[in-house]
């Protein structure tokens, strides 16, 4: 047994948790190593000091102060809701953590649904002319509010209109260009 091992075993030796063979090894090392012997004796002394150290107790008015605090607590109105969940567990969690988890789960579901449109609903399809016109003409309302008094084109642009458009018109009516493209896709013979 070397010094490191001996020092590792000091507490186990004091608490009588070592096997007989280890006790013999420990004793042999201690008897030949003054450093480890000193450390062992100091540790024994410290354990004795800690056991006999002064015991601190609470002050005399401790119970009175505690009672005052508890009285103050009991006078606070307790909501019936929190009283119902007092001491209960929901799926093994404390109520506040259970409710927080449910709230987070709901938030994740709502966010996910808002990011991905419902493609299973055929009426929402951008290729459906009726809904497409509703969906894509709607930004014109915004444009009207931005340019009150100005006449803005709300009908689909024909090829001739498209030619006559200035570059400024194209910038101010980006949705019309987009709709035109949709129309072309729909009717490849055109």
């Amino acid at each position, binding site marked *: 047994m070397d010094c490191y091992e001996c020092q590792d075993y000091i507490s186990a030796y004091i608490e009588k948790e070592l096997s007989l063979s280890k006790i013999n090894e420990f004793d042999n090392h201690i008897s030949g190593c003054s450093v480890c012997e000193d450390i062992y004796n100091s*540790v024994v002394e*410290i354990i004795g000091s*800690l*056991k*006999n150290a*002064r015991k601190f*107790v*609470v002050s005399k008015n*401790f119970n009175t102060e*505690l009672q005052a605090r508890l009285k103050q607590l009991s006078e606070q109105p307790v909501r019936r809701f929190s009283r119902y969940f007092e001491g209960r567990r929901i799926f093994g969690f404390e109520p506040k953590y259970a409710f927080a988890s449910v709230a987070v789960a709901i938030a994740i579901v709502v966010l996910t649904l808002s990011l991905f449109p419902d493609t299973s609903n055929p009426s929402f399809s951008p290729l459906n002319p009726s809904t497409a016109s509703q969906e894509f003409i709607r930004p014109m309302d915004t444009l009207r509010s931005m340019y009150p008094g100005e006449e803005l084109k709300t009908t689909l642009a024909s090829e001739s209109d498209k030619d006559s458009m200035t570059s400024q018109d194209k910038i101010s009516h980006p949705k019309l260009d987009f709709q035109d493209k949709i129309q072309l896709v729909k009717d490849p013979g055109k």
Partner: protein
Amino acid sequence: MANNKFRYTDEELIYRFQKGDEHAYLELVNRYRDKLMNFVYRFVGSVEDAEDIVQDTLVKLYTHKHFYRNIAKFSTWIYTIASNLAKTELRKRKRHKVSILSQMGTEDKDFDLPSEESTDEFVEGRFNESEIQNAIQSLPLHFRTAVILRDIQELSYDEISNILDVPLGTVKSRINRARLQLQEELKHVKETRRKSI
């Protein structure tokens, strides 16, 4: 100890308290207030803070009585609460210390020295109270908790393992290393004392 036969165990008392018996709570307070006070004082090193933490622990026992489940010893549960509150207090103090130091000059003294008048009593002629307390305070938190629970509160290794929520082997290793560190710390104290004589 014939009375022990008729004495409720801690677990029976907390059960009765959970059923609404306030006397059972009072009995638990009387059994644990001083034990907790001693433990928390050794941990935080301030009598006033220790008493506040013990109050908080016992208030928590009152308000969270239903959270105790009869799968662990009551003492383990109450020591866990006290230990967690003491750690929170130390963290708070650390933050406070940083902000105070950033505002004040170097002449300001450090805070939370043991304020008891009789802290210099010698313990069986070995080390005095403040020497022991200073040595304990010099230990890292995880060593400090383990050695206080073992050598001052005299709890079993199993109980300490449950309170700290670490394996038994880790508890034993921490206690041994804490004792070696205390020995190192107090060796210097002894040498200084010898030189002064």
